[in-house]
């Protein structure tokens, strides 16, 4: 089975980590992997994207437009940059975080309305799974890692579960950060159990 995954967000959110975890999971199963993260120049707060292709031996690093089975978007405005890469019938997970650029905070530039972003995603023909940042649970008084939570939600709502066992992903996540293994296990499971704000286009 081939799987194309497109990831967008801003630097510092842990969007690349999702790609790394899924790359490790694919390697464990001895599946061919091509993972192409691109950070641009900003160390923190700049646009970040990554493309992950699993199951094909020789691939071009850039996923064809309308070719991503799963899109992970961790920032509302940046999600728009992934819309043309979503496959009709695929899954588009949007974690509706807002990382407003300075000019937006100062009222000098506009920021797209969430409804508008949702509309654009739906036009792509992909199933939208909307995760509100307010729905993220706490573990021992601290908000869980949103990227791990989102990965759990993807396990439940996308074809990711056709390729991977949730137990395997859970184990990779726990082994990656030994000190946070309990909270990440909790985050991943909570993501799996989460009832999204909206599932549209099914």
């Amino acid at each position, binding site marked *: 089975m081939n799987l194309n995954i497109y990831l967008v967000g*801003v630097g510092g959110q842990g969007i690349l980590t999702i790609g790394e975890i899924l*790359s*490790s999971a*694919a*390697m464990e199963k*001895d599946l*061919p*992997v*091509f*993972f*192409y*993260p*691109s950070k*641009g*120049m*900003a*160390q*923190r*707060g*700049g*646009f970040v994207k990554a493309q992950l292709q699993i199951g094909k031996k*020789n*691939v*071009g*690093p*850039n996923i*064809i*437009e309308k070719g991503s089975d799963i899109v992970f978007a961790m920032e509302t*405005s*940046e999600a*728009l*940059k992934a*819309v*043309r890469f979503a496959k009709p019938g695929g899954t588009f997970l949007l974690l509706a975080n807002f990382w*407003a*650029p*300075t*000019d*937006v*905070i*100062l009222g000098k*530039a*506009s*920021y*797209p309305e969430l409804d*508008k*972003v949702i509309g*654009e*995603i739906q*036009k*792509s023909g992909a199933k939208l799974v909307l995760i509100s940042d307010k729905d993220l649970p706490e573990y021992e008084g601290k908000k869980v890692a949103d990227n791990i939570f989102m990965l759990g939600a993807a396990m439940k709502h996308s074809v990711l579960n056709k390729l991977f066992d949730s137990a395997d992903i859970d184990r990779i996540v726990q082994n990656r950060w030994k000190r946070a293994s309990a909270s990440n296990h909790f985050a991943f499971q909570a993501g799996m159990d989460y009832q999204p704000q909206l599932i549209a286009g099914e």
Partner: protein
Amino acid sequence: MKKLITGNEAIAYGALAAGIKVACGYPGTPSTGAIASLLTMDLPNTHVEWSTNEKVAFDLASGVAWAGHRVLCTMKMSGVNVAYDSIISTAYSGCDGGFVIYVADDPGTNAGMCEQDSRGFALMSDMPMLEPASIEEAISLTTYAFELSEAIKGPVFVRLTTPLANGFASVEIPEPAPVSQADALLIHDINRFTKAGAVICMTQHRDLIKRLAHAGELIEQKGLNRLDLGKKKGGLGIVASGVTVQYIEEALAVADKYGIDREKISVLGLRASIPTPKQQLSQLIDFCDKILVLEELEPHIERDVYILARKRGYAGQIIGKIDGTFDRVGEYGTKHVLIGLNKALSLNIPESEYKSDTTAEELAAARPITVCSGCPHRGTYMAINRAIRKLKLKKQDVIVNGDIGCTILGMNPPFNTVWNEISMGASIGLAQGFAYAGVKTPVLATIGDSTFFHGGIPSLINAIQHEANIVLIIMDNEWTAMTGMQINPGTPCDRHEKPYKHVDIARIVPALGVEHFWQINPFDQDHATDVIAEAMQLPGVKVILSRQECAIQAFRKGSKEGKKKIVRVVEENCNLCKLCISVTGCSALVPGEKVMTIDPALCRQCGMCVSVCNRNAMVMEDVK
């Protein structure tokens, strides 16, 4: 053993499998990962270093190769410009030890700088250039490049582009080869190793041309370039090089839906773009009615196709850049192959298969690149802006010449401080030029520490000698930061893993004879502003060293020691005027409902918001 590695790491492993004695280079996205990965390995018999600049690295590498040993030298495409004076000269001389120059180009400019095609440089100096199409091939072709270099007795380029340089694939890692312990050669031969005299140079030029022809024969014997002729004659011949080869199959799969006849498709996939394989290209031209050339940036291969077509009396269509089908700007993907197939075979593929619909992303908020929270450069830009105001000058009348690296980020809001950028070290010469052109207001230049070592020092010496009226601000964050934290000569010794000698900019500048020299802390805004304003009023060369460690590195060091300070919002004083954000643009400042709040995960306690607030609503406190 299988591992998930980048193309940059693949270059490193390929070189280790060739038993390199030395690896050197200068950091530059997207090439940085090759030397960076070697520096993390335990290699007792291989010397690995970040050199001061690409030319220094290349000269050093030439010495290794002339002494008969294997050497890898790495750089981004802009680095080739810096090293090229030496590259072409060494190419003329040839070498005895295997000499591989790894260059990473960036079609589509993921990281800034000119979108140049380094193949042009290889052409100009008749050097072979290998272009792996995958990360796996980046290993094997790098190892082979050393053999090729020794066989032709000349240096060889290996070229990747960004997606392969920074992309990861799961590949088998080869065993490193033992490093040769043979005695260094000392060949005293002025006919080979000098350029003094027409006979010497022209003989070397002839030898160079022969070496490239010989490389072409060896590459053909090795079967590096793969020609798959279709079952039927008279169809379409596709020529592609490097990573572009990988998009062909995916495009053909799409084209299948529109009735493509696969038996009439022939493909020549190049792994050595220079020299172009004349024999295989001729075969393709003779076999096919139409030729489609897929190469990013410049139409180098395509031009050779035209020449061969003319020589062979070929009358068919050639689809590429020269006929206007493709652009010389940007990177290629599957859609480019589809456009070519559609045009060549009149397939009636609908536009929706290859035309980008960008309506969604056009709605996205602009996100200009800026400095990190806690970045010391923020303090320097703010102090420059304050100094201009203090002298009652207008910002549009005071030119601040910029340079490469993180220091250029001051070009963007909210600072809008830096005006321009050419190349490593260029800000100083630019400033001198503006002064000579008769600019009446003070002329400033900014430069980073690594950039100063790389290319700034000769320019500063020139400005000093000619007593130019300029203010140079060296923004020293003690790291080569933008490329991902490499060390440079100014990085303090206790921050190194290996023993090096520290070279202190604070000692270099006065030693050059600069009379007006100050050192400032960019986080001490009042002092920094006063010094810059004073410097702007004095004649001659003024140099200000603005020194504070990169916030990311300082945080990594500091988080081990524990947080000592905290910035607190005094809620009764804050009226949410957002002055702090509009001056500092710091991402740690988050407007709350009634007052400003500070994101503790982002705040680095630089105190810039504290210095800006005119209502005493921000205070820096010791952690109890």
